[in-house]
């Protein structure tokens, strides 16, 4: 009897482990399916012209996504310019003044901002930029994406600075280096790899965002470098083409998906690999 129970328990143990392993691998299967599907469908429409032409109207063969690539590029630049310095400065404050009230509220604001749905950020960018300017623009989309970037940059800056050993700062201060120079010339360079990781991952994140752009950057079938005019971006193009009724537009969208996924995954992977080597160790 008791032998039977022991065997039963051992069987349960083995069964449990098998179940955990099977379920774990099942849950990463979607990634493989999605990658396989995107590459399988998108690769055939990828060629040089696809990358350097603008889209053609329905029914015409050919055309490309260069205006969306330029638009995405513009949006990322507009988002990064204010957000990276602001985020790093705020991150320094949060990590240097742990006891202050502002750090408590600032930290809470960062958490809330990070959890705010992207569509709500879209509404905000619409209300703050599109309404006063009287029209859709790359600027409004960039500002929306910039708000999304901020919490990620602040958090990685704060966390990286928290990992810096005290002796680094103490050594600089003991040599008579003023506090601000210690932070700017000693601590920040040592933390640069960590902060860069945060910045690049947040760029990868916003490059794939669609929701905040629906009623800000809006989309544009033509080439545009003007930041106060609407621009297209890769995710917007995919959304508009994927939900259209034309099969050739679907193929087009798969091609654009291939480019977007390739960009995002390459950025994510290379950040993980390169930064690991470059990192300063203590």
């Amino acid at each position, binding site marked *: 009897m008791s032998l039977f129970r022991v065997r039963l328990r051992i069987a*349960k*143990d083995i069964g*449990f*482990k098998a179940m*955990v392993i*099977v*379920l*774990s691998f*099942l*849950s*990463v299967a979607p*990634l493989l*399916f*999605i990658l396989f*599907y*995107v590459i399988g469908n998108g690769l055939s429409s990828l060629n040089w012209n696809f990358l350097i032409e603008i889209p053609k109207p329905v029914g015409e063969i050919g055309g490309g996504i260069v205006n969306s690539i330029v638009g995405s590029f513009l949006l990322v630049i507009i988002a990064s310019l204010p957000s990276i310095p602001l985020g790093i*400065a705020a991150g320094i*404050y949060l990590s240097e*003044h742990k006891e202050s009230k*502002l750090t408590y509220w*600032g930290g809470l*604001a*960062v*958490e*809330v*901002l990070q*959890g*705010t*749905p992207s*569509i*709500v950020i*879209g*509404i*905000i960018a619409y*209300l703050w930029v599109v309404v006063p300017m009287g029209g859709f623009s790359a600027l409004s989309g960039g500002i929306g994406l910039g*708000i999304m970037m*901020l919490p990620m940059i602040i958090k990685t800056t704060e966390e990286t600075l928290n990992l810096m050993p005290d002796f680094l700062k103490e050594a600089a201060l003991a040599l008579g280096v*003023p506090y*601000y*120079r210690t*932070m700017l010339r000693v601590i920040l360079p040592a933390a640069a790899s960590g902060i860069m990781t945060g910045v690049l991952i947040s760029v990868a*994140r916003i490059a*794939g*965002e*669609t*929701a905040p752009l*629906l009623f800000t950057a809006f989309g544009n079938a033509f080439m545009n470098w003007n930041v106060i005019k609407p621009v297209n971006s890769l*995710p917007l193009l995919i*959304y508009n083409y*994927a*939900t259209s009724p034309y099969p050739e537009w*679907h193929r087009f969208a798969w091609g654009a*998906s291939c480019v*977007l*996924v390739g960009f*995002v*995954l390459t950025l*994510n*992977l290379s950040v*993980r690999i390169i930064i690991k080597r470059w990192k300063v160790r203590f």
Partner: protein
Amino acid sequence: MEIPLSNKAAILPRDRSQRAESAFQIIILLSALAIVVLLAAIFLSLVLYSLPSLTAFGPSFLVRKTWDPVTGTFGALPFLVGTLLTSFLALLISMPFSLAISIFIGEYFKRGVVSSILKNVTELLAGIPSIIYGFWALFVLVPIVRGFQMKVGIFPYGVGIFTASLILSVMIIPYAASIGREVITLVPSGIKEAAYSLGATRQEVITKVILPYARSGMTAGILLALGRALGETMAVTMVIGNSNRLPHSLFSPGNTMASVIANEFTEATASLYVSSLIEVGLLLFLVTMIINVIGRFIIKKISIGA
């Protein structure tokens, strides 16, 4: 004491560095302040612009079933129901999977090639843009669900609450799994060893010691995944069917708070219509804020305790 004239030159650079010092302090202070102000401004803008709808409908906005731009009556109940249904169904579907990954990486295979591959793949899964998930779901999941619906004899929409929940569940697995792994590794090895020394099998240690100990952390992980599911827009918008009626079954088309904004915001012309959509946005903002704050609070409490 008077400073000798010859020393003044030596003092000057110090003066300059003091000015730079205070400028540095002010800049980082203002930056931190800007974040708090930004969040407050977001909240106030949402309230301000939804005032017309707030005053016109009051609390009945939350319980009214009709959303009709033509007659100008707006009630958010269909979207509230749609959001809750998709999010909770997605949580339910994803739970066994994210739990399995947490146990796999947090307990069975703490290091090694397999676990690092699994960890990296789940992180990459979190990095794929939601538009790609939506596109894939529209062309792969929708036909599968439609086939299933034809077999069991329901009207074959393909799109709907159930399809949206499926793709959402795939998208939230990485979030729940990464928090689950962290709280599992926080379980002190003393109590695990105590259980082993009493003759417990590994499965018994996991289900009777580790999981109960990590319960509150798991709850936090589920809350944060829920917060993410509630606000997810694009993938859901593409496969939920965009119907403004109250859903009558899990397979019927519907709309969530996020998807109705995505679909109708650019079409909205009447000011009451826009304001009602912004009020939906305000609701979404408040709900995700509360869920996130509670989730982070639990996590902070556990990591301090450990």
